[in-house]
């Protein structure tokens, strides 16, 4: 087997192993499928009755934001699973085999991507049931989901990097929660950020979560001319900026996670 095929073939073997694991751990599956459903219903009915955005129903505004949030939460499974596996001897087994070392992280991120996709499908279905609608062409909508998946994949590598640097499930969870909550809430995901006080508004406008949310809103047609969008480059060119973010995340975090993995397992 050559150097190109091996990481792919071995990565697929590892991804299948992870998929089996997920199928057998109801808690993980519940987290990925049930949590988004609860979030959609909670935000749609609780916030939906209190928050109003100009020119469109809140639920249409909300769903792209929920998608982005769910992607960020689900991608944390990658990091969390890695810290759990680090505790067991399974990486020793992998490293004593003539497999491609990169396959472990490739397999982990790919299986988590599939899980993320399942979560998105469920959320979209629930969203449609509570009144979310797509107003663009099927091609654009497909692009919207594609963009979310790319972001999910790239963000998995970010959580993998953090996990391999911290190495314990507890510290990973603490950091992940501490970072992801402000990241999601100081953004335009759930509310119109133009109403925020100045310093928070600037943070929200430049927050990549806002960029991805805005890109998804544009691709699904969940925008309104009555809603004024922030006048910063990553929001005005949200789709391009999102692709740029994804590229940057992959270029930085794939090699970083790979290096940290080697370090974490060879001591």
């Amino acid at each position, binding site marked *: 087997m050559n150097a190109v095929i091996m990481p792919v073939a071995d990565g697929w073997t590892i991804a299948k192993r992870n998929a089996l694991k997920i199928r057998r751990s109801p808690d993980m599956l519940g987290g990925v499928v049930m949590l988004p459903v609860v979030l959609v219903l909670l935000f749609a009915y609780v916030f939906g009755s209190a928050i109003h955005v100009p020119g469109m129903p809140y639920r249409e505004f909300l769903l792209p934001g929920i998608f982005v949030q769910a992607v960020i939460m689900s991608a944390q499974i990658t990091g969390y699973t890695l810290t759990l596996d680090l505790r067991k001897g399974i990486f020793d087994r992998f490293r*004593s085999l003539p497999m491609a070392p990169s*396959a472990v992280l490739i397999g982990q991120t790919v299986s988590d991507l599939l899980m993320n996709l399942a979560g998105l499908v469920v959320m979209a279905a629930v969203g449609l049931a509570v009144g979310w609608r797509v107003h663009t062409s099927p091609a654009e909508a497909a692009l919207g989901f594609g963009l979310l998946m790319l972001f999910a994949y790239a963000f998995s590598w970010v959580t993998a990097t953090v996990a391999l640097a911290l190495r314990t499930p507890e510290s990973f969870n603490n950091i992940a929660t501490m970072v992801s909550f402000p990241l999601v809430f100081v953004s335009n995901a759930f509310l119109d950020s133009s109403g925020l006080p100045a310093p928070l508004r600037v943070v929200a406008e430049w927050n990549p979560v806002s960029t991805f949310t805005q890109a998804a809103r544009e691709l699904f047609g969940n925008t309104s001319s009555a809603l004024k969008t922030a006048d910063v480059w990553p929001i005005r060119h949200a789709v391009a900026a999102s692709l740029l973010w994804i590229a940057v995340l992959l270029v930085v975090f794939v090699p970083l996670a790979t290096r940290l993995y080697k370090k974490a397992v060879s*001591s």
Partner: protein
Amino acid sequence: MSDAITAEGLVKRYGGVTALDGLSFTVPRGTVLALLGPNGAGKTTAVRVLTTLLRPDGGRATVAGHDVVEDARRLRAHIGLSGQYAAVDEHLTGAENLEMVGRLYHLGAKRSKARARELLERFGLADAADRPVKGYSGGMRRRIDLAGALVADPPVLFLDEPSTGLDPRARAALWDTVSDLVAGGGTLLLTTQYMEEADRLADQVMVVDHGRAIARGTPDELKDRVGGNRIELTVTGADELEPARQALAWVAVGAMRTAPESLRITVPVTDGPEALRRVLGRLAEDGVRVRDAGLRRPTLDDVYLTLTGHRASGAGEQARQTGRTGQAEEALR
């Protein structure tokens, strides 16, 4: 190339701790070497270096002709490893675990599946094959891990303390399996804290202490140096210790150890049963009353005490206890 494993002056340090301190040895193809030593002797570190999991700080080593550092990837196609702690995936079934390992050895889907079934059968796990490993007992996990090392039928095997944590019956079963394995002509490096395990499985035994080899030989050679069995004698009163010592000196082949507070004397002898018979006869003649008398095999502690003059630091007490686990071990002699 008749050596399956060569190690030359291996050094590995962890901060201030020197885990391997210039360890050198060879294992001829088709033979079994046991690394014998207490906790912390450096056994696991040696195995990890030889299986490419750890880079040595000094020295060099080859396995199946491949350098452990330069040629790690190719080397891995020739080895099987069962580490000190079972490396299995809890959520996967026994069959899925082995199939995954087969795929990662690049055996292909069909052969991986067939091989998994074959090994499950051989290790008596056929009934549990399709249950998640989560529900397996310690002995079953050990066996599935061992099976994992054998998936690709590798010519060189590494087993790190394969029987630690197993009950005597599971240990006996494991020993049978390993004996069968090496009868097929493979090379095996195994580590253990138990003298009797080395005795039972190995062609050569190397005693390791603080990352260095302190003795090497066949189990018989080693036992000759250490003495075969021990007579352990407990008398009924302190004033009977001296006459008992005199009777024991008659058959002793090494240093006698007396524990006055427990009224116990331990002494190495060669022909155990005969020596015990003679000693008991003489004690009866001398009118020394004996509370307890018996034979036991040398423990790791005895080996250490004889070879190094000090007790095994970590596992002394543990090895001592398992040195006397009763019938199962008796049956294996």
